[in-house]
Every structure is written in C-alpha cells, then in structure tokens.
C-alpha cells in the first residue's frame, strides 16, 4: 500500500525528517509514537503532499506508484486521507457542504458525475449514526467554534464519508473524553478492511487499546529509531521515551 524509502524533508532549510523508512501493507494498522517535536505531524503532512516541506531525498510510493510529484488533492483522489491534529476553520461553509464538495470533486477527478442527492443523504445519515453525530452538527460552519472533541469526531466523519485506502490519524485521541474516544475508535474499526490501512499517530497507549496496531514505531529526531509489536506501546507508556533516546545515543 504505502512504501517510504529513505525520506528526508526540511522546512526553511531546517531538516525535520532525516531518513524515514516505512512499509504499510493492506489490512495493517501501524502506530507511530514519539516525543513532541520528533516529526510525526511533518511525516503525515509530507505523505499528504503539503508543499511547504521540501523533500530532499527518498521517495514515497502508493501502491507501487511514486507520488512525489502529485499535488495534495491528487493524492487525496488516490485514497490518502489525513485526520488533522489541528483541523482548520472555514467560516460559512457547513460540514455538509464541505463533505459534499470533497466527495464530488473526488468523483469528478475519477470521471464520475456528482453523487445523486438521495445517495449523498443516505450516506450522511449512515455515517453520522455510526459516529453518533447529531444532525444539527452537520449544518454548522466547518470547525468554527467546535470543541476539541467535536473537531476530531468531524475528521473521522469525513474519513468515513470518503472511505480512503490509507488513513493517517494525527493525534485523533487528543481532546476526546473516554466515551468519545470509544465511539471514534469503534468507527475507525468498523471502516477497517483487508484492503485499506491505517497509520495512527499518538502519544498515548489509550487509543491503541481500542485500535489495536500490528506494528508500533518510535519516531525520534526525524528517524524511526525502534519498531516492534503492539507490546512496545505498553513499554513506552510505562517507561517513557528516555530509555529509547539513551539507546539511540549509545
């Protein structure tokens, strides 16, 4: 599904990613953990195609195809979805209008007509029920005045609507209380299949109790310094990151 080879990326001449290697196969869940500032969000942004970051070395392959030259929207059309750590506000554009535009633009890119209104409605109803989203919420301006939890739930709602091949969840758990966390995790799990994959970026073990990873990677100073099975997450929870830093520096 996704293969990253020796990826180096910088912003304003400051190196942030310094040789990332990662392979994600269909049906897998990968967790990426690591201290603040280690480059987790940057990695997510670079995969999604944010042009602010210069890719200086390495390559990103999606289903065998090099996507380095694709614009962000083209990557999205190919099935990459990023649940943002900090979703932005778009005043005056309702959640419904936004997702409708996203779906129809993606269909247009594939040479399809707009989704018929009744089909769209059915889909919205189904997915908002899955994530226990109030219908009134859907008519509000995108992320404007949303609580932290509402923002994250809205991200996962959009993910459910768009049914991506590769979903990257960047700290989707932060800002969620325990009930919301369960609902969101449950939603993600329902959408999982043997054909898609999820990368979960998180600080905490908590989310991984619900979305169980096949692999856990630790990012430190722009490199994946340790990878292991899901038990690695427990170890990190208990011992923090210092022992890994020491291991690396040794």
């Amino acid at each position, binding site marked *: 599904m996704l293969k990253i080879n020796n990826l180096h990326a910088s912003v304003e001449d400051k190196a942030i990613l310094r040789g990332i290697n990662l392979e994600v196969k269909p049906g897998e869940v990968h967790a990426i953990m690591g201290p603040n500032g280690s480059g987790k969000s940057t990695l997510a942004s670079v995969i999604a195609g944010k*042009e*602010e970051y210069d890719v200086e070395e390495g390559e990103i392959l999606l289903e065998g195809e090099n996507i380095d030259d694709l614009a962000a929207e083209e990557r999205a059309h190919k099935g990459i979805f*990023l649940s943002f750590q900090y979703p932005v506000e*778009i005043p*005056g554009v309702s959640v419904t209008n936004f*997702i409708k*535009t996203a779906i129809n633009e993606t269909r247009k*890119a594939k040479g399809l007509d707009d989704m018929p209104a009744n089909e769209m409605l059915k889909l919205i109803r189904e997915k908002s029920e899955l994530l226990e989203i109030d219908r009134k919420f859907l008519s509000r301006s995108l992320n404007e005045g949303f609580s932290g939890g509402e923002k994250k739930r809205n991200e996962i709602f959009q993910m459910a609507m*768009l049914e991506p091949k590769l979903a990257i969840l960047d700290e989707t758990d932060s800002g969620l209380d325990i009930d919301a966390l369960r609902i969101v995790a449950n939603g993600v799990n329902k959408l999982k299949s043997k054909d898609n994959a999820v990368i979960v970026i998180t600080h905490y073990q908590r989310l991984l109790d619900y979305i169980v990873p096949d692999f856990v990677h630790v990012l430190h100073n722009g490199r994946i310094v340790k990878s292991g099975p899901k038990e690695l997450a427990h170890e990190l929870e208990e011992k923090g990151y210092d022992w890994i830093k020491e291991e690396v520096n040794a």
Partner: protein
Amino acid sequence: MSKYTEDDLREELKTKEYEYGFYTDIQSETFPVGLNEDIVRAISKKKEEPEWMTEWRLESFKIWKEMVEPEWANVHYQKPDFQAISYYSAPNSKPKYDSLDEVDPELLATFDKLGISLDEQKKLAGVAMDVVVDSVSVATTFKKTLAEKGIIFMSISEAIKEHPELVKKYIGTVVPQKDNFYAALNSAVFSDGSFCYIPKGVRCPMELSTYFRINQAGTGQFERTLVIADEGSYVSYLEGCTAPMRDENQLHAAVVELIALDDAEIKYSTVQNWYPGNAEGKGGVYNFVTKRGLCEKNAKISWTQVETGSAVTWKYPSCVLKGDNSVGEFYSIAVTNNYQQADTGTKMIHLGNNTKSTIISKGISAGKSQNSYRGLVQVSSRAENARNFSQCDSLLMGNECGAHTFPYIEAKNKSAKIEHEATTSKIGEDQIFYCNQRGIDTEKAIALIVNGFSKEVLNKLPMEFAVEAQKLLEISLEGSVG
C-alpha cells in the same frame, strides 16, 4: 503539478482574464463628443421628450457646470475628460420586438456569450426582462402579465411619454439634481433606464430584472432608474451588468431612486461585473453611482449588491428612513482584484421614530487592489429609538492588497442604539491545504472559502441571482489552474 503557495495564489489571480471581454458590432448612432446646452437639448429632442423634461435637464446641466468632481473617496484615477465623451448612442435598428426571432442576431449572440440567453431567462420562474443595450431599451418581456396587475415596467423614456404625471412627481425627489457631481451630470444627460410602478396593495408576482451593457466604444452610460412602490405594495428588482472589454476607460454614472410609500417594501439586488481593467490595471469601467431609497411609514428597503467589476467603484446605496417604523437594509459583497479600487458602502439616515437599519458588508481583496467600506449612520435629533447594526468583514488574499473601513456615526438623539462590528481575515495556506487534502483543488477551495465568507449576503439574493453571483465570485477570483 499544482503545489500551492501564496505566490502561486497571487500569480493565479493575476492570470484570470475578463471572460466577457468582447465587443458586439451592432450599428449605432452616436452623438459627437462634448457636452453643452445644445447637446442636452439634442438628447431630449432625440427622445421626443416633453418641454418640462428638457427644462429639467437644462437646469441640471447648469448646476453640474458649477460643481467639481469629488475627491474624498479612497480611489485614485485619471479624471475623465467630460468633453471627450459622446453623450448619446443608440442601436440603429430599434424596433420593439414581440418575439425573440425579431431581435438582432448579433445581440442574441452577445447574450449567448454572457450565458443569459433570453430564452433561458424566460423559462426561469417569472423573470421579466427589460434589456438595456447601450442606453436604449430594445426588448421588453412579460409586460402583459404585469399590466394585468396594473404594474408599470418600462424604459424611463417611455414612462416620460406615457406616465408623465408619475415621473414628474417623483424624479429627483430622492436624489436631487444638485445632490452630487455625478448625479447632476446624470440628470442632465441620462440616456435611458428603467421605470417601475407598483400600485397600492399589489405584490409584484415576479422578479423584475434588467440587464445593462455598455457597448459602444467611448460612450459613457448614464442610466436613470425610478422605482415607486405605492402603499402596501411589494417588489423585488434585479439589476445585472456586464461590459465588453475596452481599452479606454468608460464612465458610468447612474442614478437610482427608490420610493417606498407607507407599508411598502422594495428589494433591490445588483450584480455588477463591468470590465475591471486588465492585470496591469489598464482600461476598465469607472462606476460612479448614486443609489438612494426613501422609506415612508412602516416601509422597508433592502439593497443587496455583489460588486465584482469596474476599475473604480464609487457607490453608496442609501436609505432615508423618513417614516416611523421604517426599515433600511444594506447587504454587500465587494470583490477587488489586480488594480481595482472600490470605495463602497451605505448611508442610513434615521429621521422617523423606531427606525431600524442593518448593514452587512463583505469586502474581498486580492492582487494589488484597494477595497474600502465607507458607511454613515445618521440619527436625527427627533428620531426616537433608532437602531442600527453594522458588520464589516474583510477577507484578504496575499500581502499586496488593502482593506479599509470608514464607519461614520452621527447620532443626535440619545435613545439611539448603534452597534458596529468589524473583522479582517486572510485566506490561509492551512485552509487551502485542508481543502486540498480532501480532494478539493486550490481553485475550488478559494471559491468555497469566499462563498462561505459571503454567505450571509448571498443568502439575501433571489435564487437565480445567487447562482449567477456565485459564478461571478469564482470568475473574478480564480486563476486558470490546470
């Protein structure tokens, strides 16, 4: 490849050329350039006007000669040479048509290019069109349906002949000849325009709609519009404008007067996309308009405008709230790009008791443009319990454009309650990336963000106009990406 940066956005905005820039070669009859009493008389004669009208024009001309062009607005331009303009231009063949087949095919082709074929317009639920091409009305539809209700909707030239008592009674009562430089000029030389009268208690069953075009090179256009809503009546009036591409600046100085008698309501909506000049700031229309409405007791006037065109815009649709409990509203979207300059806003003059006004202004600036909101809320000493709410929001794209807000408040009565809110925001790269990540390209993302920003005003437009307005916002702001 279409990676987005602020620089790209700026580049993109620059490359959007005016889509309606073409010139229709309809044979015209044009007066020699220059303005003097003889020209004023000749215009009046050409239009077979009665003596009182000729006199009124001459009086206006005398007033205008004594006035100087105002300079207080936040716009900079080469002043037009008023002696280098031709003050009359009429399409040569101007019969009144019963069906579209009789209309000059060149003209129909023009409408096709504009995407406003009359045919399509006719099908749109109840839109009657009075089409003004280069100052003379050449087609009027739906007249019969309107006549059954006693509604008069015709060119002002016709009205001067057919309903002189109404025109004589109301013309210049809301915008006096001496009101300002451009209004005086218009009063002297106005070529044509629309007239509308809604009788007592009648609800006009359709949106009344006029499309204006400036067509002949070098002819200024001086439209005169008069709308009278008699007691307890209602009308929604739509005015839309497009102009072909021209290199020399074209002057437009219209006057619109609205009169809402007791318990009447007038909604006046405008979509304006005259040629704004090219990316270097050359050419484009100068738009100096005086629009004002008078509200009698319990009357209501709403101005809604979407301004995307013109090189220089000077425009302040206003309401004189004379009657007790009368209501004035102003909803505006003004878009400027490249080197466009807009100084627009409103005046709400509270004279009666319990009068209420609302002002919602949305300014969108891109390129090197300057966008100013200028608003006056005035409450007279005798107006008890006046209320005003004003909200002025500015959206900036890039770092080279400017947004300015000039709210003036003159409250002479202590019971007045006046609220003013203002915000300025920028389209952020993060917003664009967020949209891109969801599969929405940059062009569409900008349209989405701008439409969201303008929503409160777009919602005030009649349906068919709202669609056109959204299209215009996209045309004026989007680049030719991909």
